[in-house]
């Protein structure tokens, strides 16, 4: 058996994230235009495969069979693999992982992974309904289980077991909003959120306040994923995919177990670090799935950034900020950028590419980064998906 080819992300782009006066299709087109602008050497006919990360287009845009629609909108005629990937909040990363798997298996050479979600509707109750059917709908969703009350219970248990404070939650949110101020595509770009202001915002699901929760966001993002020997045709700064990990161990909330110990993420982390041949201490930065402030805290613990229970202190002490230990969410995170479900995992990969290429403003540039981790959880943190990237030398 021949050696598996290396795979790289060779560039990418996002739309502006926010409450957009744009349809699902218009967001796809905007991401595509920006992708081709970002990679001038890319010609549409070179793209043999397209993976479309879209969590709930049937709900949010009343549109199914979206992969060929996206191909048409991008001017692509995929001849090897065309598919949609759906894994709720991790749908975007699923698109990249699928492109990576296809290229590593020799089934594709040049692929686009695009993620998109249009979430703001005239009736936000309908949008909330869509979010609640991510859970086990007739058993948990029927009780009103959307993400905020679930992650609120995670925060409540973390506070009880480890003494984590509302100030620690605010420290995570303040940091990510601060980073978002250097990201013009972020939903909360140019908006100031001090810890004091965050702690005065209304409760959404106690103890979580508005600033602890990522938003309902419209947006799209796309990356070019290519066989390693083709990467230099498109970029001088390829971001090499060096490892992945994923774990799914339950779905109904009855099987959640200990809310503050994300066993599935520890499992996925071991596999991601093993496959990349590194450990957490080797990371220069990480894009963690901060759908809620508490998520970044618990995820950092499960990934070994700090001991169990110390995730709050990690943020309060500035260890997740520039100048600290592992910079977390320099893009601005889901809290600062917004969370268009299918687009988030792709936008995180775009940030990794840009950080490696030193294309981001100095306010969020991690100094000379070599290793980066991207984490997406989905649903009620019952699935964890990870990718490890290394800067091209």
């Amino acid at each position: 058996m021949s050696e598996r080819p290396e795979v790289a992300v060779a560039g990418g782009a996002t739309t502006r994230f926010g409450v957009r006066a744009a349809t699902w299709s218009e967001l796809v087109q905007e991401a595509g235009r920006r992708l081709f602008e970002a990679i001038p050497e890319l010609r549409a006919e070179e793209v043999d495969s397209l993976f479309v990360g879209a969590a709930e287009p049937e709900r949010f845009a009343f549109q199914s069979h979206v992969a060929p629609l996206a191909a048409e909108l991008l001017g692509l005629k995929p001849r090897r693999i065309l598919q949609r990937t759906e894994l709720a909040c991790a749908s975007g990363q699923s698109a990249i992982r699928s492109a990576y798997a296809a290229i590593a298996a020799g089934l594709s050479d040049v692929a686009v992974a695009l993620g998109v979600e249009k979430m703001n509707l005239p009736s936000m109750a309908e949008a909330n309904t869509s979010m609640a059917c991510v859970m086990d709908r007739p058993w948990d969703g029927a009780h009103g289980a959307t993400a905020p009350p679930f992650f609120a219970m995670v925060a409540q248990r973390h506070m009880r077991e480890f003494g984590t404070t509302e100030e620690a939650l605010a420290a995570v949110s303040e940091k990510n909003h601060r980073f978002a101020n250097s990201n013009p595509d972020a939903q909360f770009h140019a908006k100031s959120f001090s810890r004091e202001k965050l702690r005065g915002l209304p409760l959404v699901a106690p103890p979580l306040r508005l600033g602890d929760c990522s938003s309902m966001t419209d947006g799209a993002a796309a990356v070019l994923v290519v066989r390693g020997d083709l990467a230099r045709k498109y970029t001088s700064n390829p971001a090499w995919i060096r490892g992945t990990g994923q774990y799914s161990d339950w779905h109904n909330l009855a099987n959640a177990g200990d809310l503050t110990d994300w066993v599935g993420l520890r499992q996925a982390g071991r596999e991601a670090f093993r496959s990349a041949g590194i450990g957490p201490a080797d990371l220069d930065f990480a894009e963690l799935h901060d759908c809620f402030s508490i998520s970044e805290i618990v995820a950092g613990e499960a990934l070994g950034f700090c001991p169990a229970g110390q995730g709050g202190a990690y943020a309060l002490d500035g260890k997740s900020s520039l100048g600290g230990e592992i910079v977390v969410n320099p893009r601005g995170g889901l809290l600062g950028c917004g969370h268009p479900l299918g687009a988030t995992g792709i936008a995180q990969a775009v940030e990794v590419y840009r950080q490696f290429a030193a294309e981001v403003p100095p306010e969020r540039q991690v100094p000379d980064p070599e290793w980066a981790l991207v984490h997406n959880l989905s649903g009620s943190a019952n699935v964890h998906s990870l990718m490890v990237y290394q800067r091209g030398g």
Partner: protein
Amino acid sequence: MAPPTTPAAEAPAVTARPRAAPATPSSPAPIPTLLDFHPLEDPRFTEIAAFFDHLRAGRFSTTRCRRDGRLLWPPRTVCPECHRSELEWVDLPRHGRIYAFSAVLAGAPLGMEEAVPFAVGLVDLDGVPLRLFGRIEGRPWTELAIGAEVNVEGFDLPDGRIFYRFRARPASPGAPG
């Protein structure tokens, strides 16, 4: 642990079933099936309709695998461990304690907006390895506490269906929470 009751495979056919109540001028507009969270409870649509019949009769039940003894939640038609359908209905305890709770103060889905604010939580049922999620009635979220006692009860939905919810016990001197 409650004793085994009627095996699922031999559960008697259900004949008398409350139908959806006719709409009255004061009824809210019905929610289309695919925007409605609650299970279709009718045996025309599900093989576990007995769960809802039991609930109407005051029993809180689920399925247990007769081969490996595994208690399955929610009620299943196949055991996910041994992949057999040799299941039986068993009654669950109708009492437990709150492991974690929160409340929906904003962002409620369709059909739940008028209930805001409402409390939800994960409850450890007494004596069985089940921690179930559900709405908590009886006391506002500000008066709930981890460890507080709750009962499980049937809750009649406006259209004639039924679902379970938790009910927090009234405050009493010396009671935890």
